[in-house]
């Protein structure tokens, strides 16, 4: 009589291996699950990249759309503020500040600048080399006369031309003392404004992409500084998408390159975003900024 040995019984109960069929089914299911997980994960990663790219593009579009109109809206084309109007560049005489003359002498004017919304002080930046326009207002004359600023400094003081309520509109406690190269004889109470050249242009940077840049003015050298990127990258203006367009008062498009700045009544800036993540399949976001010039 054969008796089962205890060691054999132990071997049988310890068997934990899979059958071939079990292994194959497990492998197939695992491959399916992993494939699904990887597929969904890849899609999510793609979506994640696309959204972050779109966010960055939106920010670039929005920043350019907010910055340029600030200088453009108050420009006076009839006064010659639109100096050069091309499809890839726009040169302006930007108003950096305005206010009321509070006194001074023939060659030095004290100016109380406008306050901003909520009566907060504006960051008026007057500097030597700026142009001060003084409104000459007589019976027979109404004209903005330009004077070159030779020095500018902030001083504490008051504006006797304005009453206490005027402090809600003008910064009467912090005046600008503007020294002029020529005699201006600004009547106290008259208006002045400060202008400085500025140039916006779409340019191709070293990385091969197109950006919207700004050239600030260098009063000492009397020329524009090197371009500084403002926003981008954008699609190339050569394709006809990104760029400036100009229209006269009857909404007729002005010929690019030879646009007479005095005829410009409306400026359109079209920005076509360039996606930095190639192959994402994103539609090219476009933003069109329309600015009607107010001082005509």
């Amino acid at each position, binding site marked *: 009589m054969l008796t089962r040995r205890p060691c054999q019984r132990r071997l049988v109960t310890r068997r934990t291996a899979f059958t071939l069929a079990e292994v194959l089914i497990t492998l197939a299911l695992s491959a399916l699950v992993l494939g699904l997980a990887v597929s969904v994960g890849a899609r999510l990663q793609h979506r994640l990249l696309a959204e972050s790219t779109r966010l960055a593009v939106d920010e670039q579009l929005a920043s350019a759309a907010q910055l340029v109109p600030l200088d453009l809206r108050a420009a006076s084309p009839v006064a010659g503020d639109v100096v050069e109007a091309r499809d890839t560049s726009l040169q302006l005489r930007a108003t950096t500040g305005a206010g009321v003359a509070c006194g001074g002498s023939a060659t030095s004017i004290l100016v109380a600048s406008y306050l901003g919304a909520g009566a907060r002080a504006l960051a008026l930046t007057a500097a030597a080399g700026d142009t001060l326009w003084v409104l000459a207002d007589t019976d027979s004359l109404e004209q903005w006369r330009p004077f070159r600023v030779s020095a500018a400094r902030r001083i504490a003081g008051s504006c006797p031309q304005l009453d206490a309520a005027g402090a809600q509109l003008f910064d009467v406690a912090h005046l600008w003392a503007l020294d002029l190269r020529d005699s201006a004889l600004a009547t106290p*109470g008259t208006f002045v404004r400060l202008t400085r050249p500025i140039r916006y242009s779409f340019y191709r940077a070293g990385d091969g992409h197109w950006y919207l840049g700004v050239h600030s003015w260098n009063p000492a050298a009397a020329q524009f500084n090197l371009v500084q990127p403002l926003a981008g990258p954008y699609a190339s203006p050569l394709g006809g998408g990104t760029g400036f367009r100009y229209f006269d008062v009857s909404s007729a498009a002005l010929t690019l390159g030879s646009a007479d700045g005095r005829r410009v009544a409306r400026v359109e800036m079209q920005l076509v975003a360039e996606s930095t993540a190639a192959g994402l399949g994103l539609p090219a976001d476009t933003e069109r900024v329309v600015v009607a010039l107010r001082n005509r």
Partner: protein
Amino acid sequence: MTQRVSRANRAARKGVALIAVLYFLIVCGLAATALLWSERTRATNVLGARGGTRLSAVADSALYAALAGWQPADRLRQPVGVTILLATRSAPDVRTRVFITRTTRRLFVIVAEASQILDGSARRVSLLVRLPLASTALRAALISAVDVTIGAQARIVVDTACGDTTTAAVLLAPSAALTLDSTVIGSAPSVARSAAAADSATYLRFDNAWWTDLATAADVRLASGAHVTPMPVTSASSCVRVESNWGDPSAPTSPCASRTPIVYAPGDLTIDGGLGQGALLVDGHLLIAGPFTFSGQIVARGGIEMIADNIAISGSVNAWRARGDTLSAHADSARVVLARRTTLRYSGCDAWQGVASWLVPRRVRDFAWMEQL
């Protein structure tokens, strides 16, 4: 023993499910966060831009509404350097304020501000406007081309709050004689002579208009030889535009404060008392025979007599020497007599409010609109 081994094996089993699920969850979470953040940023940008644009539009609207509702009389009476809060309007979520500052005799700045009540964001825009007021060559309380007699109780003073200056209280043509009562109360008025005081344009030209233009466009046209007692007339807190109502200079808030008529009398005129403002053009002789308060400009071509107490005129009184109708000329009446307790106060603002009431402000050329950001 068997159960123990089996548990040990299960604990030691290396699977990929947990890693896969964790990977899936992390990527899914990141994607969802990015999507949420992206949409939120986009929504914030759009809402911010929309709110700013809306505030700018509201401020612009208030600015041009103030220009459209320009009150010439109020603005001309506003002293130079003074800022007034014209209007405050509160919609459920936006508050609008409009200020007007007069910085020179002609220049005004209108500033409109719209602010979001909830978050305090605001936009402010301004517009420079100019009234086409000509500088009067001559400025004085009394300008006369004819002889003048000033009684002891008459006072002639100068007010330069309007931003313009004058060299004398009384300005006479070189040929005009002045008779001043030696017992005059207080100091005698300053007197100057000018050839321009003998020039008809001084009396008959008002900015870009002439006497005949204003006479034709007069709001009140009286009969020759009329006796009047003008007084403000109101009905249900509204000013009634009738011939006997020459406005109300006594209170800026009165219903008739903004009525500044041009009153034209084609012949002699007698005022038996009353109250009024604007421009009074008399082609003949002007006699003021009762207590009378007037703010504005009076021009008479056949002499002026003030023979009652409590006559107060703020502005300018001008006496020319030639009537419009030469056939009815009276040689002896062409002079100015201030016989009783009369006060003439020169005020450039008051003097021009009548004739300038038809002037409309316009934007300063080239550069008028500005956004204060």
